[in-house]
């Protein structure tokens, strides 16, 4: 779907036509409703307002994984601020537009900051409480009209010259809807989309690629809140506002709209919003029976079509088109049969070892719980341009040390320096900025995206101003150019690890484990790290894939990249590495050249003897 996939001129021209058709359709529809009956004019704008809310929630929850039950509260703040400022202080309604958006956005930023402290479910609960508090406050004060509510502000009609356009309220809501759609769909088409999904599904991966995940989460939630504030502003012109219209059930309804319509899709939230809003008004049978049917539909759709209404439609279309699923390349079946023990490893020149240390860790102490020690006074020095192995029995603290170097953890005492700079106090994304990148033992990629998009995440650091341009991505010519560059570099990175031809476009969920590992490797390399840490890169790989990895290491060494490899497969380590560090029970046992370490008595006792 992304515009950045394969974009010959024909594709962008097709998109251009599509956009024009959509715009014309939109204008026609708005004009029609603006001249329509009063009934249409109340129903459609309400549906549009909830579509804005659903889209904003999909941005936060569907794309970034921040499930919020607070959007009704944010919605209420926008509506009440506009109404009260206009009614009690005489502020112009158009002045209230930026005030609502920015004000509610700031509240969203505060709430978003909370999400950094508590995980998914608890965050949802806190936002739920937020809505409850807002509604209680609105109900208990006569200043806000109390339980009864107050009349919304009146939007001025169009001046004479534009009177042909019809109802100004319809155009107002319609424009707010259009702006929301443009922003949310632009983000979907931009590289930011892949990054948000990564934050949702694979946060360590995103952080390791240099994405400042905390800032992103807060920022996206703030944007989502700002859109909810916009919805509130528009809603206040629809007649009457009272606390009952913003209760926690409304928050849940918005989430239901998103899930029912189809989470994380372009049209899903809009369809969901229309369905939930229109159902009670359009289906006029005995209201109690209608509500029972409504509830039953929730259950049935979700149970049988967990991907929502959009999922149903997509399934129907797929059956009509009979599109085959992507086939796997033949090469892998051959590789899978080759046992690991027979793999022929690439030849690496262990030449002169440089005196310049790319990474120096001194006196590192660490314990997960106060009082215990997982690492005790560990030193590790890695020469620039070398391949350095890190081995040790299970529980020796290898992974912990890797996490300390790459930034997932911070040492209790000791120092770590990369390229001469002290990094032990920096976060993971900041260390990525300093050229320290890593892969993870169990590949944590975004399963619903393609290999190419995942590798694109690795390039986050090299792209300028992705986030700010994402809001209007398709409108920036520079964006198209950057998108194409991104795609091209991702393709070549994947080719470099042996995944050419059909692989870049394949979904990660569909590829075998070994390929996933290679994709991860490509993603780490494409960011042009100076120090690359590979955490058990051979786990679960077949013989052919191990050979591939050894080729890659050889290539990296030639390019001057310093590589640290954590592995269990000792043959690989002793053949590929220049130097090796051995850990056991949290302490350094031996560090030296591969030959030295292999011959060492203590090492044999501690490790190879097992």
């Amino acid at each position: 779907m992304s515009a950045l996939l394969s974009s010959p001129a024909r594709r962008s021209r097709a998109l251009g036509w599509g956009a024009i058709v959509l715009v014309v359709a939109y204008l026609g529809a708005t004009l029609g409703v603006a001249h329509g009956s009063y009934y249409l004019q109340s129903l459609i704008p309400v549906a549009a307002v909830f579509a804005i809310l659903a889209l904003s929630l999909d941005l936060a929850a569907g794309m970034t994984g921040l499930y919020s039950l607070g959007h009704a509260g944010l919605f209420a703040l926008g509506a009440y601020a506009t109404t009260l400022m206009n009614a009690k202080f005489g502020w112009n309604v158009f002045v209230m537009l930026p005030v609502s958006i920015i004000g509610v956005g700031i509240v969203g930023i505060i709430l978003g900051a909370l999400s950094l402290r508590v995980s998914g479910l608890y965050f949802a609960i806190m936002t739920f409480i937020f809505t409850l508090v807002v509604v209680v406050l609105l109900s208990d004060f006569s200043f806000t009209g109390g339980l009864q509510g107050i009349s919304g502000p009146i939007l001025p009609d169009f001046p004479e010259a534009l009177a042909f356009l019809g109802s100004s309220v319809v155009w107002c809501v319609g424009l707010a809807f259009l702006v929301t759609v443009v922003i949310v769909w632009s983000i979907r088409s931009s590289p930011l989309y892949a990054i948000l999904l990564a934050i949702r599904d694979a946060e360590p991966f995103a952080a390791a690629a240099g994405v400042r995940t905390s800032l992103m989460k807060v920022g996206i939630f703030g944007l989502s809140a700002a859109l909810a504030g916009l919805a509130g502003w528009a809603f206040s012109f629809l007649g009457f506002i009272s606390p009952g219209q913003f209760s926690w059930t409304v928050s849940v309804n918005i989430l239901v709209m998103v899930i029912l319509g189809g989470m994380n899709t372009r049209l899903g939230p809009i369809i969901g919003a229309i369905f939930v809003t229109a159902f009670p008004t359009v289906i006029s049978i005995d209201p109690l029976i209608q509500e029972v049917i409504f509830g039953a539909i929730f259950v049935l759709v979700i149970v049988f079509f967990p991907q929502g209404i959009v999922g149903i439609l997509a399934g129907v279309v797929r059956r009509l088109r009979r599109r085959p699923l992507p086939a796997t390349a033949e090469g892998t079946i051959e590789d899978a049969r080759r046992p690991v023990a027979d793999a022929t490893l690439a030849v690496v020149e262990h030449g002169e070892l440089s005196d310049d240390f790319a990474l120096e860790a001194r006196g590192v102490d660490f314990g997960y719980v106060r009082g215990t020690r997982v690492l005790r006074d560990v030193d590790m020095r890695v020469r620039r341009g070398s391949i350095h192995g890190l081995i040790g029995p299970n529980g020796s603290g290898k992974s912990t040390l890797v996490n300390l170097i790459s930034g997932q953890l911070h040492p209790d005492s000791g120092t770590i320096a990369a390229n001469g700079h002290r990094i032990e106090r920096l976060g993971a994304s900041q260390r990525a900025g300093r050229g320290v990148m890593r892969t993870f033992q169990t590949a944590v990629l975004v399963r619903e995206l393609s290999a190419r998009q995942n590798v694109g995440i690795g390039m986050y650091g090299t792209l300028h101003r992705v986030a700010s341009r994402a809001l209007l991505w398709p409108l920036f010519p520079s964006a198209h150019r950057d998108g194409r560059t991104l795609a091209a570099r991702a393709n070549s990175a994947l080719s470099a690890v042996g995944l050419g031809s059909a692989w870049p476009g394949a979904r990660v969920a569909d590829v075998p484990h070994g390929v996933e590992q290679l994709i991860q490797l490509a993603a780490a390399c494409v960011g042009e790290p100076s120090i690359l840490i590979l955490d058990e890169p051979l786990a679960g790989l077949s013989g052919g894939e191990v050979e591939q990895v050894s080729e890659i290491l050889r290539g990296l060494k030639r390019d001057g990249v310093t590589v640290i490899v954590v592995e269990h497969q000792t043959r690989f380590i002793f053949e590929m590495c220049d130097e090796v560090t051995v850990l056991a029970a949290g302490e350094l046992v031996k560090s030296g050249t591969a030959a030295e370490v292999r011959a060492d008595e203590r090492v044999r006792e501690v490790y190879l003897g097992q």
Partner: protein
Amino acid sequence: MLLQVLLSGLAIGSIYGLVAMGFAVVFYVTRVINFATGQLLMLSIMITAGLSRAGLPDGVSIVVGLAASAVVGVIIYFIAVRTVLRFDRFSFAWLVSTLGVAIVLQTGAALIWGPTSRGFPALLNRQTIRIGAAAITWQELTTIVVAAAAVIGFEVFRRRTLFGKVGMAISSDPEMAAAVGARVTGYAVAAFAIGGLLAGAAGVLVGPITYSNPYLGDTYGIAGFVALMIGGIEKPAAAMGGGLVLGVLSVAANTFINSQASDWFPFVVVVIVLLIAPHGLFASGNPFARWRSSAAARRASLGAEGRS
């Protein structure tokens, strides 16, 4: 006055706590929040009241009401939760499906029994005990006793039987648990049945003062949920603690601040609790130790290979 506040608070708090436990037991095993738990409370009230009106003795009506809540709880598992979890363990789709069930139950009850409040057997609510200047009805006393029994009973059940140990395993990794032989479905059914039973018990205990009304599910569902947040979602015993705290604080707020304070005061409490101890006051021990050890636990889970 303080004694009255304490007694009344514990009584209503026990109701909240039972509902909260209803949520928590289900969450404990399946990691799902059953949004229809409040409606299960309502169901036992409606059935008990309906049968009593039809002439059956109170005892029989109550037993049938409780059984109904437990059975419907299990039905909810099969219809709305199991299929959803099978598709994707991590999605929040159960939110939509259990909510749908809640709407169906509530509106269905309104269709069957009418939307207005009708009577409920007075049970033990007419007799009062006086302790000093305070008074407590026998019904309220029974409520507190039942709540205590529920907590103790559950803890014993959890420690002495395999349920507790297996329960945690199932909730964190059902495939793995099934692979080692745990009968996942069986445990989930038990969890939903117990959850329904607890909510049903709360219904029968609070019925005499609320009378029977199909919309009670919303009110008590929310209250139970807030209690759950205060006490802690991970352990059902903590949920009861949260309920008691909520009950006493609400009554105290009403008495000492002003009559509308019970609207907002509990939420202020919840917000403060969530900021200091996000996993609940009673999750384990003192909130501050909880905070530090939860930070450590986060680091530990990073160290565990693979998952972060």
